[in-house]
């Protein structure tokens, strides 16, 4: 009897151009290559130097998101770019796309946005595909049952030139999340709790497959939030078996198969889930019913805790190096081990990023902030993940709710997630952020980030201190 295959096995095996040998990695075919302005310029330079062309521009799509401003449009309807380096980088992407025939979603265009928001939104991200991008949060697309992972610029060049990558088969890890979430607890809290439990290196060398009743009951956008942060758990990719929720989301989107082709695709996609008895190299578990809203206190995403908990003490750390890491993080964050975070004053709130900038995130945040005012002295930025998300949110009047509360409603982009544009957290200031990384300086030199869900972000926005969102429900 053949060995039962996992979801990962199904996708991997279908894309092997040349099998792995003792001397060589597998040659893996890539169905979709997403590119942006930051990690692609040097790859195009490499192509030119070698006299190569882009093998499949029709499997490649570019957008502008990282170094772009999110400031409101000027009177001409244009989003003004003032940073000279960003201007050069964006112009370079334009030139590269024009020269090699790659479609580009220009800054401010109707379809432009964060690369990991637009792929699914356009129906480009589909079950069973291999998807890569020079960006570690490419893991997001795994929510559809695709094998999707971040690559470096050398590999961007490889895919541009050959539509393939050299890869060794990674190990697999079953991440089982069962139980029903309590009110006020979200997909973001699931992934923050998982990383707090297993650490930022726990998934190294593995591809996660999230499974269990809690995962099944999530919407596609919630599943994307979870897969997005697989990389924060050390896994290059995270996958979720496609089901009716997936197919309903994909149906009718611009680049999705239509009509009879869609029905045929769904029939194929139904064969992708892991077979009964399929074996994984490793397993992780989490009980969703026990979770409360999570927040991070330190300088990596694994330094997270229940919002009503206490920051760990040095004595609770398992070894000398983690004591050193906690001590360093506490100094950077200006926090005390053993103390609560509830009630700690904050200066900024960022609602956005490829983790939490989709319509359902904005709806959730708007519903909670409605009728409240942003606390005095707190700056709140709400940044939709794409122009499409922005348009849909505005059609529902969400922007008016945010603005009435005193929050900023901005143009689409990566924004304050990574300090590559004008949206930054000032040195020494505290931000409750719905993004994915709380590294030192991530949101700007000296910035102090606390990662949390959109609900927890809103609770902090209106009280001016770290607040349990369940007290507002």
């Amino acid at each position: 009897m053949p060995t039962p295959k996992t979801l990962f096995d199904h996708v991997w095996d279908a894309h092997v151009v040349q099998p792995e040998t003792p001397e060589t990695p597998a040659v893996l075919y890539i169905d979709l290559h997403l590119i942006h302005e930051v990690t692609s310029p040097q790859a195009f330079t490499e192509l030119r130097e070698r006299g190569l062309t882009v093998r499949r521009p029709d499997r490649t799509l570019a957008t502008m998101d990282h170094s772009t401003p999110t400031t409101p449009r000027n009177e001409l309807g244009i989003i003004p770019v003032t940073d000279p380096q960003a201007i050069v980088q964006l112009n370079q992407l334009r030139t590269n796309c024009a020269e090699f025939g790659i479609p580009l979603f220009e800054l401010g265009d109707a379809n432009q946005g964060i690369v990991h928001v637009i792929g699914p939104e356009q129906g480009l991200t589909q079950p069973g595909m291999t998807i890569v991008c020079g960006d570690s949060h490419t893991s997001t697309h795994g929510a559809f049952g695709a094998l999707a992972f971040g690559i470096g610029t050398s590999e961007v060049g490889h895919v541009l030139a050959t539509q393939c990558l050299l890869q060794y088969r990674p190990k697999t890890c079953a991440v089982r999340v069962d139980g029903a979430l309590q009110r006020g607890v979200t997909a973001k809290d699931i992934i923050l709790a998982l990383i707090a439990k297993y650490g930022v290196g726990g998934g190294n060398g593995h591809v996660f497959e999230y499974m269990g009743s809690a995962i099944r009951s999530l919407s596609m956008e919630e599943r994307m939030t979870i897969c997005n942060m697989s990389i924060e758990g050390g896994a290059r990719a995270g996958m979720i078996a496609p089901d009716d929720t997936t197919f309903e989301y994909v149906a009718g989107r611009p680049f999705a198969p239509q009509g009879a082709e869609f029905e045929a695709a769904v029939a194929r996609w139904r064969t992708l889930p892991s077979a009964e008895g399929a074996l994984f190299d490793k397993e992780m578990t989490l009980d969703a019913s026990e979770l409360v809203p999570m927040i991070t206190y330190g300088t990596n995403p694994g330094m997270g805790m229940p919002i009503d908990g206490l920051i760990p003490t040095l004595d609770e750390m398992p070894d000398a190096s983690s004591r050193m890491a906690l001590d360093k993080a506490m100094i950077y964050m200006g926090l005390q081990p053993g103390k609560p975070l509830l009630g700690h004053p904050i200066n900024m709130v960022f609602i956005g990023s490829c983790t939490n900038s989709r319509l359902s995130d904005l709806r959730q945040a708007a519903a909670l902030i409605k009728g409240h005012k942003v606390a005095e002295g707190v700056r709140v930025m709400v940044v939709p993940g794409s122009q499409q998300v922005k348009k849909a949110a505005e059609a529902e009047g969400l922007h008016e709710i945010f603005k009435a509360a005193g929050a900023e409603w901005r143009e689409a982009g990566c924004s304050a997630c990574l300090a590559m544009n004008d949206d930054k957290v000032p040195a020494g200031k505290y931000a409750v952020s719905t993004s994915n990384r709380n590294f030192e300086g991530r949101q700007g030199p000296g910035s102090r980030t606390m990662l949390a869900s959109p609900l927890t972000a809103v609770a902090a926005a209106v009280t001016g201190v770290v607040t349990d969102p369940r007290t507002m429900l």
Partner: protein
Amino acid sequence: MEPITTFSGKAVAVPGENIDTDQIIPAKWLKVTDKAGIAKGLFEAWRLLPDGTPNPDFPLNRPEAAGASVLVAGKNFGCGSSREHAPWAIQGAGFRAVIAPSFADIFRGNSLKIGLLPIAIDEESYHELLSHIEEDPESTVAIDLVNQRVILPGGRTVAFPIDSFAKHCLVHGVDQLGYLQQQEDAVAAYEAATSGGVNTRA
């Protein structure tokens, strides 16, 4: 790419686990379209004080670190963002290898592509190496890629793993893209056999 077989060099340690690529090269250094000058941003937030002057306590700023070509750091080095700018910056600053108990997957792959050796050694050997560097900041390590071993300053030999293909490419100075290009027939056959798929230009 220059072939790499054996070399020895002075080692400098930046201890700490989970050193992420935002620390190795802050995002503001990613707003470039080439690789020139990126080394100036290496560990910028740790290397410089808030007023922009060098932090004398940061290991890379100490006079004895001058000319070091082996960087030593804690486990899960290079986690976070996939930016290849991180290994570019390390290599640009004169380093030929990073020794750590473990590496983040994407960082390891990116480093191997450009000829910066990510050498994973066991925790015990890592701590031994740290002690050597602490006692004598002029400590050197010898790296033998062909035989996959590191000779620690005290003379002890430690084996390290590396995938056979990356090793072949590094030892012979050939790049991986060249190998991929030779697969063209197989790629074309794969495409012929698998119709459909998305068309971003549709």
